[in-house]
């Protein structure tokens, strides 16, 4: 049974959610690199061109790892 499970898993085509998370974490890494390099927040186009991924894809991906926002954060924003 273990073998069958592994077989099924290995043949399980990649679901969107996993690939989105990969892109999103990469984007956040690239953002950190660019912040350190330029000492300012990069724009979405700067991140996109660094990653060679359309900016809309990055936007889509980032939503997949969006953390629940604290409802009281904005007061101190």
């Amino acid at each position: 049974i273990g073998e069958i499970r592994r077989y099924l898993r290995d043949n399980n085509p990649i679901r969107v959610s996993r690939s989105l998370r990969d892109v999103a974490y990469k984007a956040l890494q690239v953002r950190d690199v660019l912040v350190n390099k330029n000492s300012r927040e990069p724009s979405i186009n700067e991140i996109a061109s660094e990653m060679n991924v359309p900016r809309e894809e990055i936007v889509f991906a980032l939503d997949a790892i969006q953390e629940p926002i604290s409802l009281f954060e904005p007061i101190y924003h």
Partner: protein
Amino acid sequence: MELLNEMQLDFLSKSENEAFSRIVIAAFASQLDPTLDELADIKTAVSEAVTNSIIHGYEDKPGIIRIQAKLYDGRIEIVVQDWGKGIEDIEKARQPLWTSKPEQDRSGMGFTIMENFMDELEVESSPGSGTLVRMTKNIKDSKYSR
């Protein structure tokens, strides 16, 4: 001010469409080349408005929610509209911590969040005919592109 681009999205008042509408507005706003922080602000504000339409406007019953967005140089204008219940007293509704559904653990901070995350907020509403929320955000160093 020159209108650079515009779009309109209609979708059903289902909770799974909250994430969908957030992605749509972020993808559209990204044409102004914002930072990730600016994008997150826009998504959060739109999320709050859409959640309000689902929970308060239609009270979890089926209905249509419309998002319109317009891009200008350095500025995005977003309208979120429903044809649901409407708001009796808009001024009271906009106050921090005020909610009509305390029993549902609502925080009453939705309008306050929209106001703080965006640069302008207008609310038009009347009981029985629905609610329209218009929000504007300035995008620093914006470059409309592609």
